[in-house]
Every structure is written in C-alpha cells, then in structure tokens.
C-alpha cells in the first residue's frame, strides 16, 4: 500500500457539461501533487472521482494497481479533507478524530493512542473535549486533518482546505501541511485555485482548464517554461505577443510586424505563435539602443509599487509590454511619454502554441492602462 494513483482517460459528465475530459495522470507514491485552475476547470470533480463520491462516465481510477472506479468511498483506501471541514457537530473533537478507526477494527487503548498522536501531529493537543462549534476555523481545519490522518491512509485528498481562512493563517497552515506530508510520506492530492499555494507546497502541479490538463510539471518548469499561453498567464504575469515563428540560425526567428526577434529555444512551434516573456526579464534601455531584440516604444503608464515599478510600454507595432523595473537606484524613474528601447532577451523569450487568441487578449487587457475616470 504505497499510494500510487493512476487516472486513465477519466471522464465525467454532468448533464451536458463535460467536467472531466479523458484525463490521464500518474501520481507516484509520496508526492505532493496539486491540481490548479480556475473554477469550473474540473479539478474538484477529478478529486471527487478519486475519492469515490462520483462514478466516472468513462475511464478508470486505479489505486495501487487496483481499479476502484466502481468501489464506493467507504471501501477505498483514500481519505479526504473537505473545504467546509465537515466535522460532526454532535461529537467532540476526540470522537470526531476517532470516528473512522472503528472501520479499521482499531479500538480501546490503541485507538486512544492513535487519536492522541494524530492530534499531536496537527498541534491540537488539549482540545479533545471541545465541540466543533467552539473552535476557530483554523482549529477545525486541523481536526479535519487529524481525523483523516489517524487512519494512516496512503493517499490524502484535500479540496481547497485553506480557502475559508484568512491570509496569515493560510500561510502558517501551508507550512504545516508541507511538514506533515514530508514527515508521513503520504501522497497528497491537493486542489486549489490559488497559484501561490500551488507553487509553494507542491512537488508537481497540474494546471487544468475546461476539464483537461494544460500542463503537468514542477512549479519551476511551469513558471519558467509554460507550455501554453493559458499556463503562462495563470502563474504570474506574462507578456504575450502574437508573432510568426520559423526556425532560424541559433534558435527560432520571430517576426513581429517589420521587426525580427531571436529566441534561443529550438524546436519551438512554427507558424502563428505567441511569444512570451516575463516582465522581470524585460529590459528597458535608452531610446535608440542598438543590438538584437530591441524594439522602440513609448512609456504609456508607470505604476509605482515600492521596491519596483510596473512600466507599461507601447511598442511601435501596437503591442503593449509590461516591464518590471526594480527601484535599485540605478534605473531611471520612467515617466509617461518617455521614449525607450525595449530589450526582449533571446534567452528569456519563449514561444508558445496554445490558445493564443484569448490568453493574449487577457494579457493585453491586464497590461492596458486604466481609462481615465474609473476607480
């Protein structure tokens, strides 16, 4: 019993909505795996399919080599932590945590010991006789966690467990969850729409959209090498510029209007594509600077953010580029109307296929200066 999860062409339809679209996934034992995406992307549906609260319309859920697609949840070796905690209000904390032990045939002293250990683990000692109604949100969350972990499942599913907590508490609990997961080496399958949460805690993240997985990789890969414009946009800010791409000398050649850019990566998609570069990699140089990958532009708006500036530059081609400029004393303070040269370093450019259209519009909208007069 190691906690190996395999999803094969898993499909779920609600009415006429395709919630989960033939997903293939393999989560090895002991991994902290997160499903990330906007609401309606299918991440919670997938989780519920793994837990057994829904039956798949197609495909299979395989736990440790066994096809459990038709197995009811009480027979699966998987436990869930709910977003609403779902604690039993008529039972004390101790009774809540001990609830499932009866089905593992654990009773008496052994049960008491395990309950105490679980409560230690989540740092909830001393609350044994309270009722859920008397606990704070954070405490209730810990009880829900202890209640699941006391059963020593190989797999733990967590459905946006920190969603209802305030920011400070959330950060504290994120650290706790990671610690517990590493300590117990349990496979965690975590669902969230918060990209910071996903990037902080996970070994691997699957970015989901409309029932499908856009990209499944480590947080670093997702951030540095997004596969599609959607992923690029979802994790952090991204400049997305439609270009025409073709193989070139030393990498890929990108055509933007009458300008030519070089991207270092090879094997990039060809034809109509989307160039992506993160704002922190956009260099602003004095107007007229020479060299490859430099485009003339004019500063349209500057947002002062304390230790950095968010400078929005309109290129001669019409595209809007955001540059993140640190206020380290060396960079000039940009002003609206300044003429600059925008340097998109070949090393930091990426070429993406993917749903260029919508993601590009989203990125451009996010970058556009706010019309005068609105709040």
């Amino acid at each position, binding site marked *: 019993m190691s906690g190996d999860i395999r999803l094969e062409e898993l499909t779920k339809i609600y009415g006429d909505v395709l919630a989960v679209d033939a997903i293939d996934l393999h989560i090895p034992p002991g991994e902290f795996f997160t499903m990330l995406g906007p609401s309606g992307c299918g991440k919670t549906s997938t989780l519920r399919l793994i*837990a*057994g*609260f829904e039956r798949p319309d197609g495909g299979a859920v395989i736990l440790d080599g066994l096809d459990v697609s038709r197995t*009811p*949840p*009480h027979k699966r070796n*998987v*436990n*869930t932590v*709910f977003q*609403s905690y*779902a*604690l*039993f*209000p*008529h039972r004390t904390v101790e009774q809540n945590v001990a*609830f*499932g032990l*009866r*089905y*593992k045939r654990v009773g008496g002293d052994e049960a008491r010991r395990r309950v105490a250990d679980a409560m230690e683990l989540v*740092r*909830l*000692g*001393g*609350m044994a006789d*309270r*009722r*859920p*109604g*008397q*606990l*704070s949100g*954070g*405490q209730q969350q810990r009880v829900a966690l202890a*209640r*699941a972990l006391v*059963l020593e499942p190989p797999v733990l599913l967590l459905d946006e467990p920190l969603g209802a907590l305030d920011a400070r*508490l959330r950060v*504290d609990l994120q650290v706790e969850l990671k610690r517990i997961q590493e300590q117990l080496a349990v496979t965690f399958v975590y669902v969230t729409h918060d990209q910071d949460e996903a990037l902080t805690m996970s070994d691997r993240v699957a970015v989901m959209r409309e029932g499908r997985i856009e990209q499944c990789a480590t947080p670093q890969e997702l951030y540095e090498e997004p596969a599609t414009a959607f992923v690029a946009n979802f994790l952090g800010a991204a400049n997305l510029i439609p270009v025409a791409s073709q193989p070139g000398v030393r990498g890929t050649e990108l055509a933007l209007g009458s300008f030519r850019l070089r991207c270092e990566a090879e094997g990039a998609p060809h034809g109509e594509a989307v160039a992506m570069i993160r704002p922190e990699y956009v260099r602003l140089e004095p107007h007229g600077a020479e060299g490859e990958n430099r485009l003339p532009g004019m500063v349209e708006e500057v947002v002062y953010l304390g230790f950095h500036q968010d400078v929005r530059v309109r290129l001669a081609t019409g595209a809007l580029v955001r540059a993140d400029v640190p206020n380290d004393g060396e960079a000039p303070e940009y002003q609206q109307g300044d003429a600059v040269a925008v340097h998109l370093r070949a090393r930091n450019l990426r070429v993406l296929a993917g749903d260029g259209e919508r993601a590009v519009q989203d990125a451009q909208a996010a970058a556009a200066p706010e019309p005068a007069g609105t709040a």
Partner: protein
Amino acid sequence: MTTTAAPTTSRAPARTGRLRLRRDPWGHPRGLAIVTWIYILWSLAPVLLAIRFAFNEGRSRSAAQGWSLRWFWQDPTLSVFHDPTLRSALEQSLKLAGLAMLIATPLGVGLALGLQRWRGRGSGTTNRLTLLPLVTPELVFAVGLFLLFTTAFSFIGLGTTAQVIGHVTFSVSFVVVIVRGRLQTIGGDIEEAAADLGAPPWEVVRRVLLPLLLPAIAASLLIVFALSIDDFVVSQYLASGADTTTVPMRIYAQARAAPTPALNALATLMLAATLLALALAYAVFRVLTRGERGGRSALGQLASLEATIDAGGTK
C-alpha cells in the same frame, strides 16, 4: 434611524389626515399599526372569550359568570371528566394523535432521507407525490378515504384504524418538509465525510444522520400530534360511531344545540394540548441544536485562550 421630514413631504396635502399618518416618510405608519393590532384582537378575542366561558360559574356560554372549574371536572354529570360523551371525545383525540405521531414520523423521516439522496428514476415523481397532500382540499381527500374504506379496503372499514390512517397520510408531508429543512442545514458534506472515513451507508445513517436529525424528529412528533388533534374533516368522514368521535367532531355536533360551558372546557383542553405540543416542539428543537450554535460561555472562552497559549500561539 428616523430622519427629519424631507422637503418632498411638506408638499403632500393632508388627505391622509383621517389615518393620521406621520409626516416622516421613513417613520412608523401608525395607521397601519392600528389596523394590524385591531386585526390581531379580532382574530384572537373570540377564542379568548370562549376559553373564559369555560371557567364560568354559571351555565351561560355567552356571558361571563364568575370563575369555577366545574365544567372541567367538578360538575358530577356535565363536566368533561364526568360526561361520557365529552370524555370519550377527549380520549379518542389523544389516542389518534398519539398513534398518528408514532407512525407518521418514521415514515416521514425515511421518505425525507431517501428523497434527499435518491437520484435514480422515480425520484421526481415521488417528490411531487410527497408534497401533493399539502395542496389537496381536505374534503376531496376525506371523501376518497371514506369510499376507499367502504369498498376496496372494507376489511379495515371505518373507525379508529381508518382515522389513524387518514391522519398519518396527511401528516407525512409535514414531517418530510421539517426533516428536509434540517437535512439542508446539516449539508451533504458530512455524509460524504462519514463515508470517506469508512462508514458504510447504513452506518452513516445510524451514527451521523439520525443523531443530527433528532431535533427535527422531536419537532415532527409534536407537530403531527398538534395537527391530528385539530383535524376535523378526515376524522368525521372516517368515524364509525359515538366512540370514534373526536373533540372537534363533538364540538361541531353540539355547538348549535344548547350545551353547557362544558363544551367550552373541552375545547379549551384541546387547545391547551395543541399549544403545549408546539411549545415543547420549539423548546426541544432549540435545546438539541444548542451545541451547534457554538455559543461560548465566559469560561469556555477562557479555556480556549489557555489552549491557544499552550499550542504555541498558533491559532
């Protein structure tokens, strides 16, 4: 939160002077208040008077005459306690109410639980069937039952059994509504959590749902009791003779004759039983759900503060 009269109202002529509405547009319309309280008085005063007459010293049912309990039990032949027709009516009403509540409640709880989770074929129809009795005119229903028990089900026939069956049938819908409301409050997550932790469906019901439904079950019992006591049409149609007469039937039969205030006493007792049942239902419900409202006493708050410090300051 009253504001001073806005400029617009200084224009308004005093055509509503008759009702003497205050000029303040956001204020309290005294006219409506008066109407409402007059209505409430009109609505309840007759009943209060009827109760008053039950305590009459004399025989009048239309004028107050002293104070006495004679019509309840003191009068050796005419009081409720001693007059066989009145007493048996009271007993029959209580008997029917007791049986109805014990049968209707489990049926209704089962229906409510089943309907909540039933996602297969027939669930929509069953749902509608359950709510149908709530919109059916009593006469139609009573006629139907009467004909049923005199033809196809004549092996049951009319009488106490038929009356109980009738009461249960129209009460089940109420139980379903009450229990369903409680199930909504409980929420579906809790059931899933129990299953997730290893409980097979029957254990989910036994260990989690039923304990949490206890307030609704208690309330249902008492409300079915109250509904049954007040029922008239169904009871009358399914009665089979003098000993299956209920209190409302007895009142109906004797109201226009020249009875004594004993009839008022009987009616008062019936009302008292109903109101007692309702008050109990409310109290029991509040008491049983107290733990969930999570109120913390000062002691409780102190204890939790202590625990927080122990836990190292993390909340």
